[in-house]
C-alpha cells in the first residue's frame, strides 16, 4: 500500500484544465517478471511531457509516441510489450516479462 500515482492523476486533471491535450496510460495486465504492477500509470500531455511510469523506463518512449496519436484521435488503444514480439526487441522489456498498457485520452 505504498503511495502510488500520487501526482499523476492530479497532473492529468491540472494539465487538462490548463487546456492541454492529455492521455493516460495504465498497466492493465502483466505476465512474468513485469517491472511495474497492474495499475501503474503514466500521464502524457501533447507537448510530450510525461509523469509516472509503466515499466520503470523500458517502454515509456514507445508509450508516449502512441499517446500522441490517442490524444489526436480520442480513441483508446491497447499496447502490448514483451520479449516474444518484434516491438519488444525494439523497445526492450529486458526483464523478460510481458505487459499490456491501456492508453486513453483524458477529457
Amino acid at each position, binding site marked *: 500500500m505504498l503511495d502510488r500515482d500520487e501526482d499523476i492523476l492530479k497532473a492529468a486533471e491540472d494539465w487538462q484544465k490548463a487546456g492541454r491535450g492529455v492521455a493516460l496510460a495504465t498497466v492493465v*495486465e502483466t505476465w512474468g517478471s513485469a517491472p511495474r*504492477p497492474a495499475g501503474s500509470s503514466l500521464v502524457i500531455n501533447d507537448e510530450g511531457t510525461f509523469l509516472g511510469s509503466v515499466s520503470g523506463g523500458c517502454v515509456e518512449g514507445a508509450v508516449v509516441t502512441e499517446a500522441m496519436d490517442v490524444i489526436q484521435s480520442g480513441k483508446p488503444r491497447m499496447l502490448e510489450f514483451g520479449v516474444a514480439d518484434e516491438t519488444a526487441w525494439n523497445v526492450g522489456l529486458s526483464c523478460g516479462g510481458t505487459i499490456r498498457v*491501456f492508453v486513453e485520452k483524458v477529457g
Partner: protein
Amino acid sequence: MKLEILHELNAERAARRPAILVTDTESGEQRLVKSADFAKDPLRAELDKQLRMGKSASVEAGGKKLFLNVYAPTAKLVIVGAVHISQALAPLARSLGYDVTVVDPRTAFASPERFPDIPLVAEWPDTALPQLNVDAYTAFVAVTHDPKIDDPALLHAFERGCFYIGALGSRKTHAKRGDRLRAQGAKESDIARIHAPIGLAIGAVSPSEIAVSIMAEITAVLRLPPKEKEEAA
C-alpha cells in the same frame, strides 16, 4: 477518461476514501465505484477482494474484459506511547508502507533521538489526535501501559472507526481497561474490537519481535477476508 470521472476520483483520493475505476478495455467505457456504493454493485465480490488486497487487476464479467483499478488510501499507523516497542514498531511499519506517527505527552520518551525521522507529537491524546485525521484507513495501537494516556486515545480510535485497534497488556490488564472504558461510556462492541493482548501469538519476546507480531496482526486484519481473519485471531 472523462474529466468528471477524473475529478471525482481525485476528490475521493484527497478525502482518503477508497474507490475503484472499472474500465471496459475494449470499448473504453468507464465508471467509478465509490466505497459507499460497493455493496450494491454487481461486481461487489470482485471489488471487495481487490480492495482488500489493494491490487488492481483485469477480470472477465458478463462477457466483457474489465480492468479494476484500485485506489486505496495509504494506510496510517498511529502509535500512542513512545516506548521501546514503538522504537522497533515505527520503522517496521514504515517499511511496510504505512504513514507512521508517534504520540506521547512525555517528552523524555517522545524525543527525536529515540525516533529519528519519525513524526512525533509530544502532546496528550486529546490535543494530539484530532489533528492527525485518524480514519478507517488507520491502524491504532496504544502501548504506554498508562491508562491516563491509553484510555482517551482508545476512545478516540473507537470514534474514528480505525480498521485495527490494539492495546498492550495482559488479559488481566485488559479486563480492567474494559471496565474503565465502559465506565466512560464506551460501547461493548467497541471494547470487543480491541486486540489485546496485542499482536499475533508467535511467542514474541524482544521489542522487535513484538513489533513483528503487531504488524503481522495488522496485516491479517487489512488483507484477510472476514472468515479467515477470525481464524487467525
